């Protein structure tokens, strides 16, 4: 059983606080990804779980045992590293069996386990090679084999795909996911790539400035981000955010406004808000019929078009009272839009996110649906 429990973990270096108030429970067999911009404390968090670093305060439990100050070797964890970290002076076999040999397994057991591990990662027949005779992908497979051969409680991965080329990265991503499901080992995966996080994990823990922002399944992070940071970090291209305020039953952003249902959406008059709209929730005014609750049309100028194949990212400028606002729309590439055109767009009011203009915390994830309103009490109870 490999449940991981972080309680109030704090890690301070000489003059910086790398991690603060980290509370995180990872269920047995779950795949959780720690994601955030570089320097946000995700790797430090992983290091405290691995025991390579001891936290300044707080406790860490693995598989029900408190391990806060135990060295890595007493935690029954395995780790895959960004720089792969195979021992260059050992063969593939010696690398994979290193941990087993240290633990005095008998030779038969070691051979059997190494064979199984090698079969799982598809590296048969390479046991006698030295790591530098292998390709990058093969090396990382050896790294993974070395990790799974010991049947650890927890599997830690620190950006294991960052050093591989783009194509291989996608292939290995699927492979790691398949492996994790097959073996059912609790996994903690660190990456700065939100796409990797979205595609691989059961839950994503988004970290910023050393603090956990949100830990939810990928689609929940996407659809119900708890604050503006998560909203911008998850999803590519990122969400459009506008500052505005509540006026009557309208959200008033400098260039446009949107009605909201005062009965379902608890917004106080005059409150500053941040309005978030994902690029894919913006439509051409002609298509307004296809959405349930379209907003009023907004007139914008097309600034730049970036076709990526299945869709085209359109950078739109809207100008009111001499102020220009930029917004990004992901449009159907078949539509006839050209740079410099003046067009009318609408957005789906069902999918407008509203955040508190001061704290950035989410207030509601729809202007129509009452169930999308964030239950503040519940959020605070969780924290």
């Amino acid at each position: 059983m490999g449940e991981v429990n972080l309680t109030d973990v704090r890690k301070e270096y000489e003059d910086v606080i790398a991690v603060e108030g980290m509370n995180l429970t990872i269920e047995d067999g779950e795949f959780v990804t720690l994601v955030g911009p570089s320097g946000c404390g995700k790797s430090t968090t992983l290091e405290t779980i691995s025991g390579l670093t001891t936290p300044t305060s707080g406790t860490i439990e693995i598989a029900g045992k408190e391990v806060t100050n135990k060295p890595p070797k007493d935690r029954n964890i395995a780790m895959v590293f960004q720089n792969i970290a195979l021992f260059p002076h050992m063969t593939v076999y010696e690398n994979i069996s290193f941990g087993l040999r240290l633990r005095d397994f008998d030779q038969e057991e070691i051979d059997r386990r190494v064979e199984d591990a090698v079969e799982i990662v598809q590296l048969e027949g390479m046991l006698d090679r030295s790591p530098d005779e292998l390709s990058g992908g093969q090396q990382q497979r050896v790294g993974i084999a070395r990790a799974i051969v010991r049947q650890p409680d927890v599997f830690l991965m620190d950006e294991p795909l960052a050093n591989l080329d783009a194509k291989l990265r996608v292939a290995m991503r699927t492979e790691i996911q398949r492996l994790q499901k097959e073996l059912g080992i609790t996994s903690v995966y660190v990456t700065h790539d939100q796409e990797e996080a979205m595609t691989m994990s059961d839950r994503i823990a988004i970290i910023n400035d050393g603090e956990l922002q949100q830990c939810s399944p990928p689609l929940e992070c996407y659809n119900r981000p708890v604050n503006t940071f998560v909203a911008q970090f998850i999803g590519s291209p990122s969400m459009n955010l506008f500052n505005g305020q509540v006026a009557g039953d309208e959200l008033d952003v400098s260039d446009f406004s949107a009605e909201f249902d005062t009965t379902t959406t608890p917004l106080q008059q005059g409150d500053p808000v941040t309005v978030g709209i994902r690029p894919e929730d913006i439509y051409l005014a002609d298509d307004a019929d296809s959405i349930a609750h379209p907003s009023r049309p907004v007139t914008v100028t097309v600034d730049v078009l970036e076709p990526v194949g299945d869709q085209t990212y359109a950078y739109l400028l809207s100008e009111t009272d001499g102020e220009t606002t930029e917004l990004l729309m992901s449009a159907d590439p078949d539509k006839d839009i050209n740079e410099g055109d003046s067009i009318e767009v609408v957005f789906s009011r069902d999918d407008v996110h509203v955040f508190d203009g001061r704290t950035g915390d989410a207030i509601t994830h729809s202007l129509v649906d009452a169930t999308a309103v964030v239950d503040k009490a519940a959020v605070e109870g969780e924290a």
Partner: protein
Amino acid sequence: MSDQEYSGLTGRIVKYTIHNSADVYRLGFWVGLVSFIMITLFPFYWLLVLAVTPDNQLYQMGFVPENFNIGVFATVVQEYPLHHYIFNSILIATITVIVCITLGSLAGYAFGRVDFPGKGPLLVLLLVISYFPGIAFLIPLFELLTGSLSILGTPTPDLYNTPWGMVFPFTMLSLPITIFILTTFYSQIPDGLEDAARVEGTTRLGALFRVIMPLSAPGVVTAAIIVFIGVYREFFFSFIMTDGSPENWAVLVYGILNFQQQHTQMYNMMAAASLIGIIPIAVLVIIAQEHIVRGLTAGGLKE
């Protein structure tokens, strides 16, 4: 320019060298190489000539030996306990190497891979100490190692005529350079490898000996050889700390000195013993030369 400017012998040489600079460089290379080899190897040749010249002809010795007395090598080995001296030297050097590499590895790990306050000043202090001449410590060390001092009421052990009486000062003198070499090498091993070893189940110390040290083999071998040679040829403490008999751990240099007695100086014997004494070092260096070259050059190369 016209060809007339290059008239005469000097002119023609100058002209030749300008147009055939590759030849001139090649000539320079050979001149340099031959001079270097002669300077390096001449003492050995001279030792050889000295050894094979019969002792009654030593005073008319020339560059070319006039008589060959190869038997001197047999005499040195058979009639004198040369092998015993060499054994003592090798043993004492080996013990010193083991102690130095072990302690030096621990210190090198700390200096090279751990951040702690006062690291810089401590390294400088080490460097300063390493430049002290050994003789500066002579009297206090002699007193310490011969049981003439008492620390907190306990007399120090008398190590005179034991290998430890030499291992101790040799370690002291060799440790700074060992620490410096190993610090450089250990600091270059990527952190990931140590982390991987620790996650796989070693302690920090285990990672040092199982991963960091094997990967720094060139550095470790270089340090070991430098210490070994340093101890093997050391005379000062070897002379002070024993009475010169092989049973009392006198080393090779003392053994060679013993050929020089009160009324006779057996130069040919000394030369022969010296030549024989070189063999162990030569073998060692030949075996380890690949590592040494990598060790001496690797320090300057950063990936």
